[in-house]
């Protein structure tokens, strides 16, 4: 199992070092610094074996987290643990930075002591940890409180403590989607898949039982068997989900047998599920970049965007980011619509359009002056990225219902969901592949990643004494094309 855990700053100085096993010596700290942090070339693997000691590392901004072991450990588990460790630290003191780590080192040691015992990860749910590892010093707890803590930390529902009370019960649900798209030079879509995340923020009292339903094809077809009439209606709107994974609060065996998603949510924000679809993906925008190299010191870039949805719908807050080479000295931009600016600090031209209707197109052209360089290394051609808001999700996923049931406090909800708006962000291919081809004809391959967040707001009438407010609203979407 994990033999030790080190945290370094970008210079390779050790900020935190916690050794769990006897086989990890003090020299391991230095071995990692010398061989990985100060290594001459780029690190080529997240797992490094130095003198029969294996180091797993992840990097967060400029902080290195390294787990050390001499045994044949479960590598996937170690990485999952390192991510979890980052999450826990972020939940406790915000951004992981050298300063924050130094300021909270007592807390970090305390956490490391709790979530890793002899190298075995223990309960690492922030909700539970916060009940007994606090920064305010321990209040003298009553015996009941203590046993409640311990039974929660070790119990079946380790992610939620009992006795949570809110005056207003609220639940937020975000659906984030990223579309990955691969296109041939002729503009033909080679492959596309959406990977989506359902993120939930729950502020509910007691121990609520939640049930979540979406327009999953399998479920709808199963239900449709009874009433053939309904199948015809809902058949179009259902989506085929290739695969999904769930937060540990979801009862997996129930999903496996009935395909229903039921759970008791942790308090606060968490990722309920991730899913992946490959069929019938709607792409809201097309981006066609054209790049021409005029001599060694000049580039001409033209980018056309086409909106690809119903004319009655409106995309808002569109922002296109076109990367420029590092040796750019000046840029002249002309655009038909919106505003565009070259931002030298970000090495990109940022083009903003307030709104754009469906089935329209718009273009920008820019002349980029380059400084002559001796650098033989080619420009890495990062992708063009794009942000926008549209009122639909590329995968077609819709939340059908979200039922909440709390047996003791007896509040519940109606499964009424109204969609309000949605936002996208998308990254499109850089001047990318055309850069070498003079007089860039359009096309080459594009792959785009786009993600949608949906927030829908609904007012729910209560049956019991308390009211719960369900807020769903669309928000973010990201797309990258590379």
């Amino acid at each position, binding site marked *: *199992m994990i033999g030790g855990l080190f945290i370094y700053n970008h210079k390779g100085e050790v900020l*935190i070092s916690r050794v769990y096993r*006897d086989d990890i010596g003090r020299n391991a700290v230095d071995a990692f610094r010398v061989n990985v942090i100060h290594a001459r070339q780029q690190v080529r*693997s*997240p*797992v490094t*074996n130095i003198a029969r000691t294996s180091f*797993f590392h*992840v990097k967060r901004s400029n902080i290195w987290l390294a787990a050390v072991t*001499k*045994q*044949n*450990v*479960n*590598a*996937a*588990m170690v*990485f*999952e643990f390192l991510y979890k460790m980052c999450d826990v630290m972020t939940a406790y003191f915000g951004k992981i930075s050298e300063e924050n780590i130094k300021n909270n*080192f*007592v807390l970090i*040691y*305390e956490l490391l002591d709790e979530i890793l*015992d*002899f190298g075995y990860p*223990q*309960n*690492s749910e922030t909700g539970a940890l916060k009940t007994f590892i606090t920064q305010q*010093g*321990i209040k003298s707890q009553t015996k009941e409180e*203590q046993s409640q*803590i*311990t*039974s929660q930390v*070790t*119990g*079946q529902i*380790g992610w939620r403590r009992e006795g949570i009370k809110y005056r207003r019960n609220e639940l937020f649900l975000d659906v984030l989607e990223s579309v990955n798209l*691969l296109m*041939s030079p002729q503009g033909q879509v*080679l*492959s596309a898949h959406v*990977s989506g995340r359902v993120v939930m923020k729950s502020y509910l009292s007691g121990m609520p039982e939640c049930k979540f339903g979406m327009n999953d094809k399998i479920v709808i077809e199963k239900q449709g068997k009874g009433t053939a009439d309904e199948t015809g209606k809902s058949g179009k709107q259902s989506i085929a989900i290739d*695969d*999904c*994974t*769930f937060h*540990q609060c979801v*009862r997996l065996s129930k*999903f*496996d047998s009935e395909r229903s998603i039921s759970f008791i949510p942790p308090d606060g924000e968490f990722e309920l*599920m*991730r899913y*992946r679809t490959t069929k019938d993906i709607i792409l809201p925008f097309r981006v066609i970049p054209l790049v021409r190299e005029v001599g060694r010191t000049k580039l001409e870039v033209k980018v056309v965007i086409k909106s690809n949805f119903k004319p009655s719908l409106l995309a808002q807050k569109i922002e296109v980011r076109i990367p420029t080479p590092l040796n750019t000295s000046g840029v002249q931009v002309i655009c038909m619509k919106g505003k565009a600016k070259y931002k030298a600090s970000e090495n990109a031209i940022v083009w903003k359009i307030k709104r754009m209707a469906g089935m329209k197109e718009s273009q920008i052209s820019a002349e980029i002056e380059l400084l002559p360089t001796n650098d033989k290394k080619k420009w*890495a*051609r990062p*992708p063009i990225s794009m942000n926008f808001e549209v009122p639909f999700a590329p995968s077609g996923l819709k939340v059908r219902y979200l039922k909440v049931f709390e047996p003791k406090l007896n509040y519940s909800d109606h499964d009424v969901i109204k969609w309000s708006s949605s936002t996208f962000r998308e990254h499109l291919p850089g001047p990318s592949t055309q850069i*070498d081809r003079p007089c860039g004809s359009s096309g080459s391959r594009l*792959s785009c990643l786009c993600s949608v967040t949906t927030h829908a707001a609904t007012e729910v009438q209560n049956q019991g004494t308390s009211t719960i407010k369900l807020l769903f609203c669309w928000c973010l979407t990201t797309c990258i094309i*590379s």
Partner: protein
Amino acid sequence: MTVGKDVSALFPDVVNCMQTDNLELKKLVYLYLMNYAKSQPDMAIMAVNTFVKDCEDPNPLIRALAVRTMGCIRVDKITEYLCEPLRKCLKDEDPYVRKTAAVCVAKLHDINAQLVEDQGFLDTLKDLISDSNPMVVANAVAALSEIAESHPSSNLLDLNPQSINKLLTALNECTEWGQIFILDCLANYMPKDDREAQSICERVTPRLSHANSAVVLSAVKVLMKFMEMLSKDLDYYGTLLKKLAPPLVTLLSAEPELQYVALRNINLIVQKRPEILKHEMKVFFVKYNDPIYVKLEKLDIMIRLASQANIAQVLAELKEYATEVDVDFVRKAVRAIGRCAIKVEQSAERCVSTLLDLIQTKVNYVVQEAIVVIKDIFRKYPNKYESVIATLCENLDSLDEPEARAAMIWIVGEYAERIDNADELLESFLEGFHDESTQVQLQLLTAIVKLFLKKPTETQELVQQVLSLATQDSDNPDLRDRGYIYWRLLSTDPVAAKEVVLAEKPLISEETDLIEPTLLDELICYIGTLASVYHKPPSAFVEGSRGVVHKSLPPRTGSSESAESPEAAPSAGQAAEQPAVIPAQGDLLGDLLNLDLGPPVSGPPLAASSVQMGAVDLLGGGLDSLMGDESEGLRSDVGGSPAMGGSGFTAPGPAAPAGMGAPLGSGLGDLFDLTGGVGTLSGSYVAPKTVWLPAMKAKGLEISGTFSRQVDSISMDLVLTNKALQVMSDFAIQFNRNSFGLAPAAPLQVHAPLAPNQSVEISLPLNTVGSVMKMDPLNNLQVAVKNNIDVFYFSTLYPLHILFVEDGKMERQMFLATWKDIPNENEAQFQIKDCSLNADAVSSKLQGSNIFTIAKRNVEGQDMLYQSLKLTNGIWVLAELRIQPSNPSFTLSLKCRAPEVSQYVYQAYDAILKN
């Protein structure tokens, strides 16, 4: 935390703070103790009291904290005091304390294993598996698994259907980490039949939807392992295969580090069961923002999944990658195109044209890489794509890497007859001959010799120049030796030289980069762990005994595929492989001389007379001695006579070998043994070869063998077979002390390194002057064999008759006297059943193995044979063999002063007479 300062001096002051009520402060004090107790063991005792007190604190958090910390203090004196509190905590009412105590047992075991066993903690720990709290169960499983790993033999985690059921129930309830512990433990279980395997699989599959990738991978491991047991015709098998693909694909949207782990594992899974992901090629296409390590792994998997159906897409992708920025990635992409060409025959043409396009880009490293792979393509599809040579030659000047230069030179040499200016091209390389790397020099030498053989008239000067450069001006023995070989070949017999140098080369295949099957099966059992990331068994990177337990997949039940295991393939398989051991001489020589990375050949004798002999010598083990080879051929003519090689032995001819003419074989020496005179002679009996060391146990080295005796010399005939994918060399052998002092008389000589799938036959002479130790059984021989990979141990029983010496014939008088002299209690009687020989045949047969008949009597229709034999250590054994013509079973009475050998002598008799 102390910025590297040693603060152990503050020990007493810190310990004073221990009895605080402030939990936070207490934790810090405990942390201090963990770090410094070892440097101040005496002072640490001061803390014990507080620990014991804290273990009884009403607050369960404090109880747990105390027991957790005590386990981390590795001071012997403290450990003793730990036992009582730990015992209490293991039975604590609070689950938080119990789960901490469970891990503490593992800690204590690490410090003092004996103590844990003596105190009976292991049993308590086992009881915790049935605990009501899932987290306690998970930690108990984790602790037990770890303890069991360091004691491979102990049956600690004795998993049975009941306990498995408990674990599966806990699986649904515990934390993500707990699920990982339980799944990893389940993977070690061996279900008793396919039905049980299926029911476990059914209960594990829901885990594939877990958000934690480690849970998913551990579940995949369990499924991959238990799937072995399911019959392929089962519907469930198909369903399971379908269920495995989506989660594996989903792993690719995890964080990059996890993607890397997942990809390394998918690489294994794809090799084991390609059908799972064969339609998912597209998800392995590289993304712009993937880190380089993910890109390289994806490329690997793309090639593994490439097939005729998707090759067009793959090639289009690879071509795109070849224009990327990262040099390593581009190189690998170009190489991948070549591998596709070799793997998917239909695509070869397209691959070659893609490579030509890439060469046109003139990007230096792309061109070089392309040339290296085109060389491989030529090896796979000879005489098909030679039209591209002209394009390659244009880029000759830009090549600066040895591998690319060597590849180009090889191409020029191989196709010298089609390249008009081949001599000029090669000559241009020759100018800087001494500055080239060895690889290029060797290739240049071979290429020029080829050129000379193809165009002798114009290139005489060139070949002389290169030969003198290689033989006279070079310090490199490989180069010099190869130069001499060519020189002699050319000067003695140009025709033979042509046959050798221009021999047809075997085609290469794409299988070379696959992981060898035994290792692959082992790695499948380690899915998700470091071993699967490194693609090495744990023993390669873990120190000590931990994790060295060899894991293997369960055998499939209910289907005929079990023949995969090497043990199940008996000598029949051996015989089938035999022809491959000694390929036709020409081929082998040609191969040897053409290989650019040939094995380090031993120097040819300088005696100018025998080029032929020199060449034969080079072949090393393969043709160890011409004599042995010839006799083997002869033996198969003779038919049923005892064979040494074992190849002819699996189907022995009709009985009565005594009737056959004098066999040559190993018993050649016996022809001149005139002491006998009774009937015809027959060779000393040699048992057929049996597998002594299966490949499974020796990292791919299989050893089979037998013992034989020729005049005055004992030898051990071995066949070493390399079933690994790695070349083996540096063989050595050693015997443990044994009852008769057997020891190797010469070192184990394997002349050439043993290439994968090759075997070599060796006859190792033995003597009996080694040190003596009585073994049980008496004829047990423990052997250690070493090679470049590892040291392997095995033991074997040798037949006693190899120890029967040639002067074992006793005088008649002497016999009588001795027979009477040996007390009757030393007499042992045995029955030799089912033997249909007559007395003469028996005595002649036994004589071959140095059992001498001194007298023969006929008493009441029974034949009585009186025989004597002597062992190498001077022990005489006297025998009386009673043969009844009507009865197929003989009675053997043995008298000897050392009666313990009797039984083994009887076994020798039995073996000789029955063969």
